[in-house]
């Protein structure tokens, strides 16, 4: 379980998170919605310990990661997999080495096992046979899928998807959404999703959290969120469902 308690984060005096509280339960798919620039990516980076909040607690499986030293934090970070907004593939490595990156460093697999695992993962994301392609040869959608394969490789307990379907065509977006559900069901991976794709967000999530003005203003099941009495949230959703 992940608990965020009263998390504050400023950038040069500009507040982005202002006392945010949120609980993420094991095994669920939770989608964070909110306007562009609301701080969704910043929230992700705080959860994973890539950014340190100015104040507040971020408790991952009972441990407040804001109080850990670098080596301890690094251990906790291996519980997370993250699909970055821009995929963040290592562009000096090919597809195979990208997917194998975590396997080489976090598992004791030998090269034969790594080869098999990478092929398996690429099949899951529908990119079989692309092992030797350089990152520069991939389209935006392919990059996201390789990024997902790379994040899945080390079997993380928590997977964070930062706008996994933005910029993809509807068919590809649908296949990614199905993948998120499949990964969550089969591997029991707790999934935290940021998306602007409201429709699929409501379809795939167990819970939805609404981020605005640096705090979570509402959480609930998709049905609860749809019927929320919060005026701001109703407006936000109706904008996307037009």
């Amino acid at each position: 379980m992940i608990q965020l308690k009263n998390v504050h984060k400023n950038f040069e005096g500009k507040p982005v998170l202002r006392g945010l509280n949120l609980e993420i339960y094991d095994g669920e798919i939770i989608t964070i919605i909110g306007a562009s620039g609301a701080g969704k990516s910043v929230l992700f980076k705080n959860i994973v310990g890539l950014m340190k909040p100015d104040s507040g607690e971020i408790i991952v499986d009972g441990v407040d990661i804001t109080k850990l030293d670098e080596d301890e934090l690094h251990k906790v970070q291996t519980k997370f997999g993250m699909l970055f907004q821009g995929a963040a593939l290592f562009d000096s490595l090919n597809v195979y080495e990208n997917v194998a990156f975590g396997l080489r460093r976090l598992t004791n697999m030998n090269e034969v096992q790594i080869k098999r695992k990478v092929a398996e993962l690429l099949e899951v994301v529908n990119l079989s046979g692309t092992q030797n392609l350089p990152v520069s040869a991939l389209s935006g959608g392919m990059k996201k899928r390789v990024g997902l394969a790379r994040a899945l490789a080390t079997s993380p307990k928590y997977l964070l998807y930062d706008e996994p379907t933005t910029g993809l065509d509807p068919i590809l977006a649908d296949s990614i959404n199905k993948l998120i559900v499949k990964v969550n069901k089969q591997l029991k991976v707790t999934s935290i999703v940021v998306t602007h794709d409201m429709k699929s967000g409501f379809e795939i999530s167990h819970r939805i959290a609404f981020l605005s003005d640096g705090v979570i203003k509402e959480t609930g099941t998709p049905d609860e969120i749809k019927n929320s009495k919060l005026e701001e949230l109703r407006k936000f959703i109706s904008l996307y469902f037009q």
Partner: protein
Amino acid sequence: MKKFFINFGNAVMVFYKTITSIFTKRIEWDTTLEQIVKIGNESLPLVILCGAFTGMVFALQVGETSISIFNEPIYIGLSLAYSLVLELGPVLTSLVVTGRAGAAMTAEIGTMKVTEQIDALYTLGSEPISYIFVPRFIAFFVSLPILVLFADCSGILGGLVVAKLKLGYPISKYWEEIRTLGISTFSHGILKSFVFALLIVWIACYNGIETKGGAEGVGKATTKSVVVSMVFILVTDYFLTSLLLSFGIV
């Protein structure tokens, strides 16, 4: 001013962490080797070219000057050898390598930073110190002195060509003068190049990892890295030389 000190403090921390990491953590030898090859590929032709022409122009200047004073060219090999091995070799090579490999390194790391590749390292069992910095520190430490030796040699050969063909200076005399170079003179130049290597790679890596603000930020970081590195090389050279001289390493 306050920003400068914070920056400097951070840079020192990064340097300290990198050096400790070299001795305490697993080293990524594959990446290190890759970097050595890359630095060599990028800089060796340039270094040889610059070394040769520096030697050539130096021979010409010394030759013509001594002709105008003594009516004959004298000590071309001697003055060339000492200036090259003590100063021009290490300093010019470092400046060239800064502009080529150092700039490329800042740009590469800066791009990794702004495209979140650096962030991605953390959840994949790695982090920038051991994956990015350590291999590059070792690679530079190994490569630069070798590049300096290449510059020294090509400079001496370039000087020889000009001395012989343009000034009619006897080859045997030139070599005799070169041979007066002792091991201490060489170590003076090489010791300096070890320090310059750390300086270049440190500044290049630090500016890379501190990059902010997209592609434009990468451009800015690269320029800054090159300028700071060049200034530091020249300033450090003076103090380092004084230090080495006080230890009798001439």
